[in-house]
Structure formats: C-alpha cells, structure tokens
C-alpha cells in the first residue's frame, strides 16, 4: 500500500500511457472502423456542429451577399457574354452526344445509368488541423456507407471512411492518405492522384516519356469502381522534370474549392470487390 502511495504518480501515468498506446497499436494496423462509441460521439457532436455551421453560414452569407451585390452588375454583363458563347458550344456538344449515342448502339456498349445520389452539407472539419477530413450530415439512415464517393458540381471531393446513422466522415482528396486512379484527359495517360496539403494534389506514376503540360485536365478513370469515369479531379499546375527519375513529379490544382466546400453529393454506389 505504501508502495502505491509513494509511486502513485508514476503508476497512474504508466497505466494511462500504456492504455493509450495499446488502443493506438490496435487501431494503427487496420482501416478506420465504425465502433458503437465512435458513432455515439458523431451523433452527439453532429447536431451541435450543424447548429454552429448553420449560424456561421448565415453570417458569412449576409457578409458575402453584400459584396456580391456590389459586383453583381459587372459580373452579370460578363456572364451574359459567356452564356452566348456557351450556348453555341452546347449545341455542338449536343450534336456530338447524339452521334456518340448512335455509335455506342452500333458497338452494343452497355450504357451505365446514373447512380443515385444524396445531397449533404458539410457540418464539421478535422478538429486538429493535422488531417483533411470533413463531417457531413447524412449517414447510414440515408443509405451512406463507407467507401462511397463524395463529389460536388466542381468535381471529386473524397470518399466516406465511416458513417453513423445520421453523420458520416469524409476523407478529402487533399489528405495524403487519399488516392484516386486517374487519366490525363488529353493524352489518356494513367496515374494516381494523392493529396498533398492545403490546396494541392500530387499526380504520381506518370512516366517521363508521357506528354503532359500545365493546364492538362485530370479526370477519374472509374476503374476502381468508386468515382464515376470522367469526373473532374484537377488541372496540372506544375511539372518538375528536373526531379524525375522514372516518373514525372506533377503538381495539380484540385478542381474543388475545398476552402468553400459546403454542399456535397454522395454517390450511393459501393465499390464491388472481386
């Protein structure tokens, strides 16, 4: 008893640190798992996050709307001009689409129907700032499950890592542990895109011989069965041939503006593993 009293501080310290290390070691070697307590945390914190996000969104909306009004007239003129150009381009695209449909029928290719989606709002972000994750307000009750793709109108956002009944955690494409199989739209060169920080992506496994230039559009290949083929991932920002050994180090600008990410869509289709 005296021993415990004498070394109480050290004993308690060691017990807690060993317990934390054990929990860490168990979880370190496996993919993120949904646990009952983890879901409970998300369900408890989620409503408050939604509330704070709504209030924050309302305030920033008021602020942004004021500035938006100031610039609206000028932007309106520019947009009308762009609309005229795009209308003509749409006619061209429609023509190409019809032609493509006819050719696909000829080749008897299976046309994949659009997968179902559910819209969700981002209610929270990583609390530590060390990871790139977001919490959305849709969960298993809405059909959301791990590994599902998360996109928005701009392009690929990330994928679900786990879900509670009403909330889900998204691993954003910016996180270095996120990866997606891609194609360079122009040259059809294949590669893997990984997250590289706050506003940057890294395109890997592009061989030196491949022709790639700044401004090239990078799209999802659809091969991994998570993201729809052709979904925009980013554009080439810089290429560093001086650092290349076998593969070209390529820096990408993400298609999605993650700083202003508010609404997303979850594609309710799971990857089918062989």
């Amino acid at each position, binding site marked *: 008893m005296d021993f415990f*009293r*004498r*070394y*109480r*501080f*050290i004993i*308690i*310290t060691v017990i*807690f*640190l060993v*317990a*934390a*290390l*054990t*929990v*860490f*070691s*168990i*979880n*370190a*070697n496996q993919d*993120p798992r949904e*646990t009952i*307590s*983890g879901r409970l*945390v*998300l369900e*408890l*914190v989620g409503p*408050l*996050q939604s509330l*704070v*996000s709504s209030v*924050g969104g309302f305030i920033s909306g008021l602020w942004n709307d004021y500035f938006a009004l100031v610039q609206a007239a000028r932007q309106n003129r520019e947009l009308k001009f762009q609309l005229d150009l795009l209308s003509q381009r749409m006619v061209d695209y429609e023509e190409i689409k019809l032609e493509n449909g006819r050719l696909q029928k000829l080749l008897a290719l299976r046309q994949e129907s659009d997968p179902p989606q559910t819209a969700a709002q981002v*209610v*929270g*972000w*990583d*609390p*530590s*700032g*060390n*990871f*790139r*994750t977001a*919490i959305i307000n849709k969960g298993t009750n809405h059909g959301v499950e791990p590994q599902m793709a998360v996109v928005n109108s701009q392009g690929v956002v990330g994928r679900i*890592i786990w879900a509670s009944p009403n909330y889900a*955690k998204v*691993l954003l494409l910016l*996180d*270095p*542990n996120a990866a997606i199989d891609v194609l360079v739209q122009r040259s059809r060169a294949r590669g893997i895109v*990984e*997250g590289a*920080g*706050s506003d940057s992506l890294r395109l890997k496994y592009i061989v030196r011989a491949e022709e790639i230039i700044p401004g090239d559009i990078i799209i999802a290949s659809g091969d991994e069965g998570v993201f729809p083929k052709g979904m925009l991932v980013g554009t080439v920002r810089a290429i560093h041939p001086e650092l290349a050994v076998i593969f070209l180090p390529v820096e990408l600008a993400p298609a999605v503006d993650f700083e202003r990410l508010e609404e997303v869509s979850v594609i309710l289709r799971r990857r089918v593993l062989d």
Partner: protein
Amino acid sequence: MAPLRIKKPDPVFGPRLLGAALMGFLLSVLSTTVFSWWSLGEAQVQPLAALAVWAGFNLPLFSGALLVTFLGYVVDNLSGGIVGLHMLVYLTMFYACAVAEHHLALNNWAYQMAATGLMSMLSPLIIMGGLMLASRQYLASQDMLTMMLLQAVLSALFAPAVFLALQWMIRALQKVWPRRQQGED
C-alpha cells in the same frame, strides 16, 4: 525520481471536473467548425491543447488523466487519424504539465500560456511520429517549423480565453453544486 506530493481534498473538485468536461465537449465542437474556419493557412488555434494544459495544472492526477483520455478519444473520432493518437497527445500534454506543477509549482496563467504554446508545438511532432510508426502519410508542409511556431503563438495567445471561460463555467457550476458533495480521487 523523488516521490510526488498528493494533493489535499479539493472542495471545488466536482464543479472543476464537470466544467472541464463540458468545456472539452464545447471546444471539440468549436474546433471542428469555428476554429477550422479561422485558421491561418495550416496553422490553427488549438483550444483543446489549452484545456489539456489547464487540466495538468489544475485537476487531480487520476480524474484529469481520465478527462484528457476521453477528450482525445472524442477528437480521434472526429478527425481522420488513428484512434488512440490524440489520446496519447493529450495525455503527454497533461502529464508534462502535471510534472511541472508538482515539481516546479508553475501554476499561474503566464506559465500556462507558455505551456500551451509549447504543447501545441509538441502535438504535431507526436502525431507525425505516430503516423510514421503506423506507416501512414503525414501532411507535412514545406515550412513546417514556421507553421508550428505560428500555431504555438496563436494557441498561447488564445489560452487565456479558454481559462476565463473555464473559470466562468466552474463558478456557474459551483452555484448549483450540492454543498455536501466534496471529494477527490
């Protein structure tokens, strides 16, 4: 290492622990919303580090450790890391401050602010080490040292707001706390 003194029973222990737990929950929510919106580049205020430091200086050993472990678990479930990583981070912060409090009697706000700054610099290093051990990739920016310093300064400057809010919450809880209930772990 010399044996350490055991604290005397504390009459405001209950309100302090409950106040810290409630504040921890509130700060967890704010860290995922308000504080992530207000980040300066990759540097983000770490209010939970301030709470772990406060716990190290002001809470008894067992209950304080239990609180920061729980806090770490909540953060682990809200972030994209490995469950157990933030538990380790906050426990390390807590014990470092508890040792400083026991041995050096450093327990005023200035020391606690400095400790918050130091500990928020330590946190990314522990996380980086943990992720390397688990063979995962870490989001290391090119100017990591600058970011760590900036984060330390931000967190240290913000710490008094956390301490004030805690003090206010504890006082409010004391008013409604049953008078008979006193104790220590």
